């Protein structure tokens, strides 16, 4: 340890003690004030830099939090959308079932509600499978309806299920007539997936688009007066004996979920129980 170092230490200690003594005697350090003139602006700048840096950090943290929150909210929205869809599905189902129940209550014949559990929508066959079968005493050729109108007939009965041939099936034929003109004819399935009304031109010259076609009840298979569809176009075949009217089916076969199987007396007229406004 050299002398210069010790001398320096001694000087420093002396200065410090002197400063302390002066302060203890009530003399506020003017030197300190002078130094403060320099230190205060530097402190200010440092403080701003520090605040800026921390502000940046805080912004980053905020951004990170907002991002996490955004993700959480997105997930929540996704969940809510799914929930919403489920609720909407339930509401729709509820509405359909209410309509079916109303119709069932209105109809003056025995019915059995059934749920569509499968669809066959190929060009050759158009059918629905419902969850009623042999155990429910369903007979072949039982008429099947929806609140909007005729769906088709049962063509196959199995244990626990039945196959319903819908009106658009190319082999489907139903006796029908136009409500307004009473023109009789046959509703046939179209291989393209449509339905058409085949009638004798002599009787049906007055059929126009908008006319409602309902079951005629002839043959005893379907009760009279069940809506089949509405005429959308006339296929005028000149002097041919039969003309065709293109129908828009009353029932949307692709969307029907619940149906009624008519198990009672099918000889009755049901026209009053369906909204035909035609």
């Amino acid at each position, binding site marked *: 340890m050299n002398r210069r*170092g010790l001398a320096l*230490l001694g000087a420093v*200690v002396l200065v*410090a*003690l002197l*400063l302390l003594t002066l302060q203890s005697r009530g003399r506020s350090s003017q030197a300190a004030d002078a*130094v403060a003139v320099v*230190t205060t602006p530097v402190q200010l700048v440092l*403080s701003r830099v520090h605040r800026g840096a921390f502000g940046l950090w805080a912004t980053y943290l905020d951004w990170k939090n907002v991002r996490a929150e955004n993700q959480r909210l997105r997930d929540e929205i996704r969940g809510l959308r799914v929930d919403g869809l489920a609720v909407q599905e339930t509401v729709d189902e509820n509405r359909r079932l209410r309509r079916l129940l109303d119709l069932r209550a209105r109809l003056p014949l025995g019915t059995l509600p059934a749920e569509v559990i499968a669809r066959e929508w190929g060009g050759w066959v158009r059918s629905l499978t419902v969850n009623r079968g042999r155990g429910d005493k369903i007979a072949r050729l039982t008429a099947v309806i929806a609140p909007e109108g005729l769906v088709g007939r049962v063509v196959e009965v199995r244990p626990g299920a039945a196959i319903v041939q819908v009106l658009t099936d190319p082999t489907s034929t139903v006796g029908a007539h136009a409500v307004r003109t009473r023109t009789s004819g046959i509703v046939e399935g179209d291989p393209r997936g449509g339905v058409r009304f085949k009638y004798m031109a002599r009787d049906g010259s007055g059929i126009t688009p908008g006319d409602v076609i309902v079951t005629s009840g002839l043959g005893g298979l379907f009760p009279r007066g069940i809506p089949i569809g509405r005429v959308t176009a006339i296929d005028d075949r000149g002097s041919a004996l039969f003309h065709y009217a293109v129908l828009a089916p009353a029932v949307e076969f692709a969307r029907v979920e619940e149906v009624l199987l008519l198990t009672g007396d099918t000889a009755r007229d049901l026209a009053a129980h369906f909204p035909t406004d035609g």
Partner: protein
Amino acid sequence: MFGGGIVQATLAPALRIGDVAPDIPLIVVVLLALRRGSETGCLAGFAAGLLQDIATGGLIGVQALTKAVVGFGVGALGGRLRVTQPLVQVPGLLVLSVAEGLGRFFLLKLFRFPAPFTEVMTYVVLPQAVYNGFLGAAFVFALLTAESFRDRSS
């Protein structure tokens, strides 16, 4: 050193853990004293302490005196310490911080500092000493790493 005192008053609060803030100028003084010797350590300690006293509005001269003594002592003993060893760094800085705290306390007691010794030691000096020890060790590690990078690149 000029910045050191101000940095302590301005930035150290940001490094606070609970109520414990590190004494950055003390760490800087110790590092300088170890590298440059007792005279530099003494002057640096005095300057840093003085600026800390002024910047923080304390009794001017207290920290100037304690840090000058610490700087001088570390500078004088520095050659015998292996500061690259973490086992030396952390306890070394801890002991120095406690010594500085004790010195400051007894100096202030001369000027009627009211706080009891046990409380000052328990809640101020010792926690800060521990913090200084670890922060100082991190400084040393960072410095050594930077130097080894510099040596490799040159």
